[in-house]
């Protein structure tokens, strides 16, 4: 994902002048970003974008606002996340892989994964989760299975899933089986793939 692609996707928002002006303003006056960030959904909309798939208008607009800052992206992302409502927090998490920040914002992923808000857990497992240490990543994937978040939200799942995750999934499947409950189909598929690979 790139800011340019999001920019192109947002050409059709109801009030493109507002977004243009906001992006120019935060580029020269970074301290102005909180108000624009808070207002972005009601000014631009909240619906899903046809492209890129999986993004909503408000997430894309907010990610662009963050990317438009002249510098200090990690500190700004941290502050906007800490002071944000649930949708703002989600947008910060979606924006992280677009920002020149290295691994500085990993604490935000930990915070999001700790919550009970499945939208935040899902948003924490995008491409930026490559900076997340493997034990925390496995726990987060298992939390998705546990709370019914589709595993399709997990970036790089196929390559990153390992034997340890397979063991955790197998134990969880056994618990569910003992309770007479089923596993989500995507988790069963993943477990099958991992078991086959390990045995092969």
């Amino acid at each position: 994902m790139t800011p340019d692609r999001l920019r192109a996707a947002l050409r059709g928002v109801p009030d493109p002048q507002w977004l243009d002006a906001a992006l120019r303003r935060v580029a020269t006056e970074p301290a102005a970003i909180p108000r624009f960030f808070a207002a972005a959904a009601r000014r631009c909309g909240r619906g899903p974008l046809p492209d890129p798939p999986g993004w909503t208008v408000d997430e894309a607009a907010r990610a662009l606002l963050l990317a438009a800052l002249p510098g200090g992206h990690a500190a700004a992302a941290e502050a906007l996340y800490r002071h944000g409502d649930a949708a703002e927090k989600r947008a910060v998490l979606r924006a992280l892989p677009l920002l020149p920040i290295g691994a500085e914002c990993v604490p935000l992923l930990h915070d999001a994964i700790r919550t009970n808000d499945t939208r935040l857990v899902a948003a924490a497992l995008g491409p930026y989760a490559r900076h997340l240490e493997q034990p925390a990543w496995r726990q987060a994937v298992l939390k998705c299975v546990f709370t019914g978040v589709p595993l399709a939200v997990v970036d790089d799942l196929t390559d990153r899933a390992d034997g340890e995750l397979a063991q955790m999934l197998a134990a969880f499947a056994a618990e569910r089986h003992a309770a007479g409950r089923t596993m989500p189909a995507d988790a069963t598929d993943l477990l099958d793939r991992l078991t086959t690979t390990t045995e092969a």
Partner: protein
Amino acid sequence: MRIFDPHIHMTSRTTDDYERMAAAGVRAVVEPAFWLGQPRTSVDSFVDYFDSLIGWEPFRAGQFGVRHHATVALNPKEANDPRCRPVLDVLPRYLEKDGVVAVGEIGYDAMTPAEDAAFAGQLALAVAHDLPALVHTPHRDKARGVERTLAVVAESGIAPGRVLVDHLNEVTVRLVRDTGCWLGFSIYPETKMSPPRMVELLRTYGTERVLVNSAADWGRSDPLLTRATGEAMLAAGFDDDDVDRVLWRNPVEFYGQSGRLDLTDVDAPAPTFAGNSILRGGE
């Protein structure tokens, strides 16, 4: 019957309540920030509370198909504690959030100078952030409290049509009804107001600018009394349109003045009514 409860403290309620409310027709709620029983001693406690009102609680409500909005303020009781007063400094941040549709609950508890200052200051915040205001009226010394409330509202310069004066009764409604402010009634199991008394008030004063809420919280209260009031209205000869006006269109119109009410997917009208997109709240 589609129901918008314009004043309910869901933080203090269980998921069972959400299930029962949704089954009874409650599709949208506004949760005003208020006191929690146990006094708070620091600004950080309020910050966590406000964050919950724009974070966790809307998510919880959404799981039951209920749309949740909030009002944010330093309540009058805790405005008297110097440790809590700096809450006023963090309010502007919250008054920009999508889910915040008014400043509230503000007003009087014991009518102290500290409450005067917090009330006037927060009415000014409502004007500055282009938001309506939800005004709590005191339980003790109520009539004088309402008079003083209306004087402060008039002095603030906020348009009366952007002010909801809540917890009214047979006596205090007479003070408010000609001011242009909205009239709020909290239906409680025993105190404040009951469904039959509410029906009498609607007969006397009509349905215009009247909001009915459960004000359910951690005290003895019942989140289904909005529904009970709608049924009492029907039994007394009001029609479906009257009920829809009081229990849905009036709160949508009042809070819609914020421009932030988002009722996408929950506002499909009952079959009797034509489209209501103009009531979407400034969109």
